[in-house]
């Protein structure tokens, strides 16, 4: 009964959606309203105004800085909520708890992982640092670092990988990333410009383009390292066993 009603509802919704789609302008047409209003301005002026060749990076870290501020706040809040739900990591407690993830893997796997992880990290750094001129950027690089941490943790176990990236380093980097983002963003406001637009008309009219590029890269690095640490902390919090609470 419940199933039939749900199916009927979804069928009605699908019919409505398809009706709307059938009346939309053809996809890919240059005369579409999506392609004629705000976009030409972004595409024409992004390079001069934001000094980034990748227009998407320009939009994320310049035109729409408030959106990105919300994004950074959201991942930070998600980490805080996950830690609140699953229990916080106590300093130095990491050796104490049961680590069921410690499966002895073969020498081949361990050697391969030890060989591969540095290259994955190198690629993530490339992604972060070239975010303003090629596909990639802070969060993508951060996710790749997180991916390398996942590979390392699956093979070497939680105890080993949390010894490599201890909790105090993660906490410091997470906090520093969010604070740094807000500070660089607010510098724009204090300088008489807009949030996160590295143009400071009151203090330094006509800021050097190279300085703007370096500030953009700095923000990217902050988001990248912060995002990587948040993903790692979420992963560790989910792997950890609840036995710590009873053991202490």
């Amino acid at each position, binding site marked *: 009964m419940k199933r039939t009603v749900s199916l009927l509802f979804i069928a009605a919704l699908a019919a409505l959606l398809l009706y709307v789609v059938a009346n939309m302008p053809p996809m890919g047409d240059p005369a579409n309203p999506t392609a004629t209003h705000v976009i030409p301005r972004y595409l024409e002026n992004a390079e001069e105004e934001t000094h980034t060749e990748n227009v998407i990076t320009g939009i994320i870290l310049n035109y729409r800085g408030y959106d990105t501020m919300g994004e950074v706040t959201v991942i930070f809040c998600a980490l805080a909520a996950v830690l609140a739900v699953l229990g916080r990591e106590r300093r130095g407690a990491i050796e104490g708890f049961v680590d069921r993830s410690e499966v002895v893997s073969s020498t081949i796997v361990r050697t391969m992982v030890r060989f591969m992880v540095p290259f994955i990290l190198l690629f993530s750094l490339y992604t972060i640092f070239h975010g303003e001129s090629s*596909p990639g950027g802070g969060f993508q690089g951060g996710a790749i670092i997180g991916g390398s941490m996942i590979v390392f943790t699956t093979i070497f176990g939680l105890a080993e990988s949390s010894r490599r990236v201890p909790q105090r380093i993660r906490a410091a980097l997470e906090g520093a990333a969010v604070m740094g983002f807000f500070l660089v963003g607010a510098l724009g406001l204090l300088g008489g410009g807009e949030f996160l637009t590295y143009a400071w008309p009151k203090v330094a009219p006509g800021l050097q383009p190279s300085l703007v590029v370096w500030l953009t890269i700095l923000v990217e690095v902050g988001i990248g390292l912060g995002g990587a640490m948040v993903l790692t902390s979420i992963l560790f919090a989910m792997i950890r066993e609840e036995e710590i609470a009873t053991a202490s």
Partner: protein
Amino acid sequence: MGTALNLALIVLLLTTAILAVTARDLLAAVIIFSVYSLIMALMWQRLQAPDLALTEAAVGAGVTTVLFVVTIFKTRRREEE
């Protein structure tokens, strides 16, 4: 040629989505979902969104899948009747 490739990718997307939703084994469902994410990343590259393709490949196929797998190991693998 381009249209055929896009259509093939869309057929694969729909197939993997239906398989991920119908699989009884949760671990199988999650792995199929990671394949779905990877095909979505290819699709975004086809739509000229390389930034998103990179993000989806790293986040959707990597991090999200691992979080799901960890959850399944901590709970149960089979769906209850």
